[in-house]
């Protein structure tokens, strides 16, 4: 409700300015859009003041909210109309640019090939000329500063209209006691800040743990002579390095029959399942065995990186 009041105040301010500077406009010719805006806001305000007091006692529900916010909607729609005029100007220029380019390109094609050929071979050549000429001319247009300027205006005005629409929607959502887009964005922003904060805490925590265990810093930091960079930023995303650090290769699990996804039609067959030799404990498997194992084994589940199984693979 406070927001609504603020918006109303802003609109009132604008009308007042118009009144001071444009008495002639309010004086009644009515051609000035500012006059219509003033007229609307004037009567909305006045009716609101005249009617709201006794009725306010009778209702505190959503419709009451909506009535309170109706003025904000009126103001937005009026402002949107002004932007719509500007948007239409830019849109008209946009289509004029396209149309002019089309005409010019067609003139060039006509100059090169005055008559549309009626045999197949020459018709193919004509088609080629047509496509090349049009592509060149339109690319030239899209590359031009004039197009860029007008397109920038067009998008800008469209965004203004979107803003008005968002504001109207926000008023309606507020009337229904629902969070608006702005409210949701503040939540998203907060979540983003929290994510970063958690990541920072995790890095600090890992540093403390590593310090307590007497471990060396990360290789990158060592090389660059810097503090270790942030790693996994989400809770539980730090991989457990024990197995690797101890020089052990995790034991690849024997792939169960039927877990290997079937190669699809048109795909080359994958390495056959179940052929990888089991590495001996504490030993590094032979490269070949490790390669084959990588195809089917589950990755370590601990520490936040995903342990895919056969059903997850390539199931996008």
């Amino acid at each position: 409700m406070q927001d609504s009041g603020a918006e109303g105040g802003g609109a009132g301010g604008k009308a007042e300015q118009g009144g001071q500077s444009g008495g002639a406009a309010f004086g009644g010719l009515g051609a000035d859009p500012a006059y219509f805006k003033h007229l609307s806001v004037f009567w909305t305000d006045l009716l609101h003041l005249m009617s709201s007091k006794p009725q306010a006692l009778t209702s505190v529900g959503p419709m009451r909210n909506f009535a309170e916010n109706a003025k904000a909607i009126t103001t937005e729609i009026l402002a949107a109309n002004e932007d719509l005029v500007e948007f239409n100007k830019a849109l008209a220029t946009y289509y004029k640019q396209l149309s002019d380019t089309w005409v010019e390109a067609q003139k060039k094609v006509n100059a090169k090939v005055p008559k549309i050929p009626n045999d197949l071979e020459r018709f193919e050549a004509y088609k080629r000329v047509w496509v090349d000429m049009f592509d060149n001319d339109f690319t030239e247009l899209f590359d031009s500063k004039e197009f860029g300027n007008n397109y920038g205006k067009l998008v800008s005005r469209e965004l203004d209209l979107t803003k008005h629409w968002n504001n109207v929607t926000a008023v309606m959502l507020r009337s229904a006691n629902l969070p608006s887009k702005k409210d949701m964005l503040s939540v998203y922003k907060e979540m983003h800040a929290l994510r970063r904060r958690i990541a920072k805490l995790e890095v600090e925590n890992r540093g403390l743990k590593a310090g307590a265990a007497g471990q060396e810093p990360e290789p990158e930091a060592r090389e660059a002579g810097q503090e270790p960079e942030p790693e996994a930023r989400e809770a539980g995303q730090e991989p457990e390095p024990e197995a690797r650090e101890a020089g052990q290769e995790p034991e690849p699990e024997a792939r169960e029959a039927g877990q290997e996804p079937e190669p699809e039609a048109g795909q080359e067959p994958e390495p056959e399942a179940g052929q990888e030799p089991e590495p001996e404990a504490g030993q590094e498997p032979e490269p070949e065995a490790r390669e084959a194992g990588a195809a089917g084994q589950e990755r370590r589940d601990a520490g936040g990186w995903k342990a895919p199984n056969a059903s997850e693979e390539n199931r996008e």
Partner: protein
Amino acid sequence: MMEPKAGIDPKVIEEIIRFGRHVSDAPKLAAAPDEIKLDTTAYDVAYEEDRMRLLHYRPRSEARHRTPLVITYALINRFHILDIHPDKSWVRNLLEQGFDVYMIDWGSPTDMDRYLDFDDYVNGYMDNCVEFVKRESRSPDVSLQGYCTGGTLAVTYAALHPGSVRNLVATAPVVDGWKDTTVVSNIARHVDIDKMVDTVGNMPPEFMYYCFSVLKPFEQGLEKYANFFNNIENEAFVDNFMRVEKWLADTPPIPGELFRQWIRDIYQENLLARDMMFVGGRRVSLKEIRMPVFTQVAVGDHLVSPECSMPLHYAVGSGDKTMRIYPTGHVGMIASSSSQKRILPELGGWLAERS
């Protein structure tokens, strides 16, 4: 045979009838985009964080290079283009050359992610992925490749975390926004980016799609589809066409704050190329990139013009740097038969010497 009226070649009439028949037969001969599965090479999801996933491709060769390769995919469209077809797969080729390949898939951000920015992507997600790969492969560093806008992220990461990157490969990276001569940069320079992000939040995927659709409006908007119907009986052509179409249409939104910084710092103020961009409070200096750098540029690139990518080669502080300019386009560089025959063998050879 009917006598031609008004001088029209009967072959033209036949062609029109044939074309109409192809249009009506198309549903019988082609799968719908939704029915097509784009992944062709098997992978595991090695690590996940929010929407981002780190994919680890399964090896396809006994030979292994010691340094793993992490590919940073672009912010626009999805990673599938690097593995779009078995015969044109960038990833598969590198696997067959003996590289251990990881890929960062940024996923599809939602409204909740609108406050993610360069810092979150580079110093957060990317760094977590690289640290993960280093630990898993027990390698002190990784080779990092970035494609398109992913190339910019990779360059930024390499400048801020040089100790983690053994080799940097930048494939059509967006670096010097002021030198970019494409339609995309013209639009980017004229958009009120603050108003856009403040109003709509994340960059809507439709906007990106329309920006790209005006690049070659008649070739891409008309001729391409006419060719599709003309070749509807060519199974391989149709399969490839539908895969690429599906990939093109699948572009996720870009987080608002990331997009704001992207447009403002790269295209409007050109801060990256001028060593004046700040990410997470740290200045990004291209001179800090002293590891071997391989820059790949396509002459016919209409999305990232060569003039926009090439300055990287001259700006980095590396003494071991190579630039290759290929006679192809933005997508042709990574997903074509020419990329399989020439570009990937060159890249593989360069990386193998340094891995």
